[in-house]
């Protein structure tokens, strides 16, 4: 089959359609995912194609949605739950940490929980409060839950298919800002990108830039002027520490870029891994470019909050000083 030039929304839609065709146990549930096709239209057309039993509009209840998905997953289905925005995933935190991530361990493998929870995440669309959250680190701290973040249409399609096929629960975070920002050639037929592996987006010698999701695109732009490695982590938990360490051992310098507030963000985990396992190769401080440790402002100030290219460039210049 041929390739198709699509944006991330379309790529995700293709992945869902492909997985639903492949496996009749794959079902979708969430608020407005049916006739409406989802607030961002990621599930558009699937209701018409697969019917109301496989594309279910639910009442407004995120903990219930994730909780139901757990029951569905344990008993033979592969649910893909959509939460409308990451800010509304918080009420389901308990179901994820207390149940989804532990069903397998709790039952010593008798029950699994092969489910995906998808949610748009991050800022950049100038929406109202709680529509620009990037609290991935809180979820990465949950053993038993995988956390995946695509950064382009191609990776979105391959990672989502892999998430659906994974036997364990996966939180799939879709950078809202990228939904329609970039178009890319994507194979029409299903393919997967393995979870837990990073990709080297650009190769260089003088520093390692590590990022994921929407920050990756800014990082790539900032990196244009430099001879650096750029790593797209893609899976945050469990993340590809080996890829990071190999690169940092080569370059001796690391900059990690995240949108979330700095304190206890995922960048801190990456920095800690470097400080623990690649310290002898380091020529410079490990710098995190991150959101500020303040309550995320409303849209009018959002652009001042989210790291921009200049802040990334400053950080690169800073490590290159050493």
């Amino acid at each position: 089959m041929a390739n198709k030039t699509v944006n991330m929304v379309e790529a995700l839609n293709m992945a869902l359609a492909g997985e639903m065709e492949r496996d009749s146990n794959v079902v979708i549930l969430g608020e407005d995912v049916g006739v409406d096709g989802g607030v961002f239209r990621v599930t558009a057309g699937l209701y018409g194609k697969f019917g109301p039993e496989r594309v279910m509009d639910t009442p407004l209840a995120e903990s219930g949605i994730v909780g139901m998905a757990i029951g569905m997953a344990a008993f033979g289905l592969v649910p893909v739950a959509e939460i409308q925005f990451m800010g509304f995933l918080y009420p389901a935190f308990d179901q994820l940490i207390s149940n989804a991530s532990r069903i397998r361990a709790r039952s010593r493998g008798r029950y699994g929980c092969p489910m995906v929870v998808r949610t748009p995440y991050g800022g950049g669309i100038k929406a109202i409060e709680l529509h620009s959250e990037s609290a991935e680190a809180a979820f990465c701290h949950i053993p038993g839950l995988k956390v995946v973040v695509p950064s382009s249409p191609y990776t979105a399609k391959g990672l989502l298919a892999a998430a659906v096929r994974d036997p364990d629960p996966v939180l799939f975070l879709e950078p809202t800002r990228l939904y329609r920002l970039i178009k890319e050639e994507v194979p029409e037929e299903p393919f997967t990108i393995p979870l837990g592996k990073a990709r080297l987006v650009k190769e260089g010698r003088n520093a390692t830039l590590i990022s994921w999701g929407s920050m990756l695109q800014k990082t790539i732009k900032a990196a244009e002027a430099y001879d650096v490695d750029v790593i797209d982590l893609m899976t945050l938990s469990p993340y590809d520490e080996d890829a990071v360490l190999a690169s940092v051992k080569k370059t001796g310098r690391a900059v990690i870029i995240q949108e979330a507030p700095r304190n206890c963000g995922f960048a801190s985990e990456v920095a800690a891994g470097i400080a623990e396992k690649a310290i002898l190769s380091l020529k410079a401080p490990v710098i995190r470019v991150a959101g500020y440790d303040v309550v995320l402002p409303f849209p009018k100030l959002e652009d001042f909050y989210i790291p921009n290219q200049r802040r990334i460039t400053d950080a690169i210049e800073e490590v290159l000083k050493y």
Partner: protein
Amino acid sequence: MPEYNAGTFEVKRLDILDSHGNSDRALMPSLGEPEIKEIYRRLVLARAFDQRVLALQREGRMGTYASILGQEASQVASAYAAGNGARVFPSYRETGTLIALGYPLYMLFQYWSGDERGMKVPEGMNVFPICISVSSHVPHAVGAAMAARIKKEPVPSVAYFGDGATSKGDFHEGANMAGAFNLPVVLICQNNQWAISLPRSRQSAAATLAQKAIAYGFDGIQVDGNDVFAVYTAVKRALDKARNGKGPTLIECFTYRLSDHTTADNASRYRSADEVERWKKLDPLARLGKFMEKENMMPSGYAEEAARQATAEVDEGFKKYEEAGPPSPEDMFRNTFKTPAAGQMKQLGSFSGGK
């Protein structure tokens, strides 16, 4: 040892003003002509503001906005009943409530343009900031009512939320606590028949939302939400009851969202034009107008004058909004804590101010 009745429960429905403007005299609340006119003017103002934000949004001058078209009666009449003697906990779709309570229009423009200064509720107003996470403010209202009781303040709480919100855990936990502690709380469900694309019938198998109160051991009532008098009466009664220590009430305002869910939505994808047309005929503003005409409260030119005044107020609010200008970027380093933490001060220190 039989199978026997362990409890019978009834849910009432209150209608006072029909769509032709005829009212049930026996049930009419004691509102004089000036008060009825005042309610009318606030309805007009709420609608004028709503339509203005929609227009500005289309021009890209406001952010995503949730219109209240069709729900003005249930918002304005309930707020009129509450006044400043209750603490009001709004969701994002309570522009009519806020306007009826006297919230400065320029601040509402700020809010919907993405400027949080708009939520610095003016001192003296008993309003809590708009809550976006659906139903999560219901427990806040309950806690405020607890504070009122403990501090011996005669101030009931009034929480507004939608039909969809009744499915969420926080609605349940808050309502059950309100019942268990017998607190002065009025829960106003704006049942506008839709939660984005999910129709009311699929939100819950319950025939009415009012009956959910039975689960919490207090009264629930459904009212015609497009009938200012029914809404006013139910809220007034519930507030009186709350003030008399008789506990919470759930009021289901049966109304309709005539607009899209928000400006980011396209309701024609999931609901029929017919349904919308049917509800347009039940327009709450037109209905009160008809009543006022019949009752000779509507001298010729009155409606036009009210509309003109509303437009002027909205114009003025918008002007003031524009004059206030954008917030300062450094604002984001304020108000996370009362006193900024050392780390925050360092981050502010290195903040260049650029985008």
